[in-house]
């Protein structure tokens, strides 16, 4: 049973600190949900766990079953069992969906060993059917020209094929219509087992109607500021975040105020120094 431990995680991008001390533990069999207003560091947390090269970890630890994740390259993390369903997956022209997944599955085997083509096709076709995607999907280029919803479904399809032990799904529900949300939700729920730890990043309660969450966390200013169970999510859905901000004395929940906005503020009292900035 896998355990992902995130301890006092600080990370920055281009010199700006975005994660400011995240603590979180996800065990196999558990489902966690992270909510929070825009720009509070949710996707950044997911990217840092996966190892996106843009982010620098300045403090803290990430451990997967006790192993230091921060020392692993992105691909090693994946092979160790981590999976990130991305908020905005890339389009890769020329690379077909099936070639990609086949290569990814082979990368998990010993050097020189390959998955049987027959087995692969059968499994892939079944996943395509489960997610009600179009039959020509295997031959289409990876996410190229896919609608927002198709991209999200393709992320879940990849998860199905790769069978991770810890999966982070970043806004897997955005861009999905009601039917697609149901399909995605049911597929994720079907994958649940005592060995899979799930972290859902979402803005809406409706996702949790299909995927039950055991823990709900709220992120603001680059850290988890509140945790609870599903009732927390229900309250946020009804009342928004203001009450949490009030409770915790937070003015602006975002990690940092965008430069343009700062410029506008400076512009209103435009002194020579301000303009020189």
């Amino acid at each position, binding site marked *: 049973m896998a355990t992902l431990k995130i301890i006092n995680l600080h990370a920055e991008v281009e010199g700006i600190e975005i994660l400011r001390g995240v603590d979180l533990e996800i065990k196999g069999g558990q489902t966690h949900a992270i909510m929070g207003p825009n720009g509070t560091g949710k996707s950044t947390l997911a990217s840092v766990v996966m190892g996106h090269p843009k982010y620098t970890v300045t403090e803290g630890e990430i451990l997967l079953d006790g192993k230091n994740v921060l020392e692993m390259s*992105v*691909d090693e993390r994946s092979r160790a069992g981590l999976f990130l369903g*991305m908020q905005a997956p890339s389009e890769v022209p*020329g690379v077909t969906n099936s070639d990609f997944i086949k290569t990814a599955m082979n*990368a998990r085997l010993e050097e020189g060993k390959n998955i049987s083509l027959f087995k692969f096709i059968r499994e892939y076709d079944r996943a395509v059917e489960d997610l009600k995607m179009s039959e020509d999907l295997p031959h289409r280029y990876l996410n190229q020209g896919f609608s927002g919803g198709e991209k999200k479904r393709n992320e879940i399809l990849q998860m199905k094929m790769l069978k991770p032990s810890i999966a982070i799904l970043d806004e897997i529900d955005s861009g999905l219509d009601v039917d697609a949300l149901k399909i995605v939700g049911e597929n994720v729920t079907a994958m649940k087992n005592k060995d899979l730890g799930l972290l859902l990043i979402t803005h809406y309660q409706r996702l949790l109607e299909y995927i039950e969450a055991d823990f709900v966390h709220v992120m603001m200013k680059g850290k988890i500021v509140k945790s609870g169970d599903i009732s927390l999510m229900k309250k946020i859905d009804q009342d928004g975040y203001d009450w949490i901000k009030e409770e915790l004395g937070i003015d602006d929940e975002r990690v940092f105020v965008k430069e343009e906005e700062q410029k506008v503020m400076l512009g209103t009292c435009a002194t020579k120094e301000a303009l020189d900035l």
Partner: protein
Amino acid sequence: MKMQYQKQANIKKKEISEIERLSEGLEDYIVLQDGHIVTKKVSSAFDDLMILTYDEALQSYPALFNELVNVKHPSSDAYQYNFDECNSGLLLYLPKKKRISKPLHIFYVATTEEFTHNTFLYLEQESELNYFEHLFSDAVGSYSYVSNAIVHEAANLTYGALSNLGKDVASYVYRNASVDRYGISKYSLADVGDAIQLMYQTINLNGEYASGTSKTIAITSGVQEARYETLLEHNALYSEGYIEHYGVANNESALIFEGIGQINKGMKQSIARQQNHGIVLGEKARLDANPLLLIDEYDVIASHGAAIGKIDDDELYYLMSRGLTEKAAQRLIINGFLSPVMSLLETDTLKNMFLKRVEEKTL
């Protein structure tokens, strides 16, 4: 034309085994070494196609030969020089309405220090030919290769080329097509060699509704320098010309694409399109694409574009996040980028040869 033929040299063991390997699985192919046909394995599908070395053509069909080669050459000194000086020549003549859709592979082998080859493709009205050439040499020397295609009314030429010339070769390749009314010529050229390379392609669209496509894929590595120029000239109304360049430049190599779509005055309703795609792999590599439209007419459709840059970091990250090593991810992206040529390589042997060379050159 002075034809200075070599006595049939003993073909080198190494080259024989290389051809044997590459031709594996091909149904129809010819090996031409220093101007002599040394292997001809061609099925009855090609019975209508006249296949002659210049030597044979001069001896057996002097009248036809003179008539054919006296058609207007493209006004290029280089072409004329090559024609005058060639020490290897091949004539392919397809009569009216004869259509052969199976591809014919020709392996051109040079064992001499100077190889000056000339291929003449002559397609009479409404005929159809699918021609695929393989240029390779490990020799030290200069390699000059010219092909000229005459595509008559409503004839259809599909022309593929795979070139893999060694690093000690300086090569000059010139391919020209003249296309009549409703004629089609479609060139797909792939270069995975290490030679210093100059390649020119011109397609002259001389009749109404004539159509020409030229697709070039090239990978440079080491300190290699290569330049590919493509000119599609519209000399008729309603003619269509398409240019596509795909390049990967590795290490300290320099790769240059020049594409010109030229629509002359009065050639209304013509279409000229051009695309350039490039991946710069090496920190010190150079990849330039200079698309040019020379248009002297208003009533036309024309477009051009160039997308050149490094492999996208986010694409790489995305693939790696599914467990692919950086190398494997890069390989997948590059192979995907080059996929437009893969479909042309008929056999697994050729596909594998291509992929192996791509891998060696993009490491």
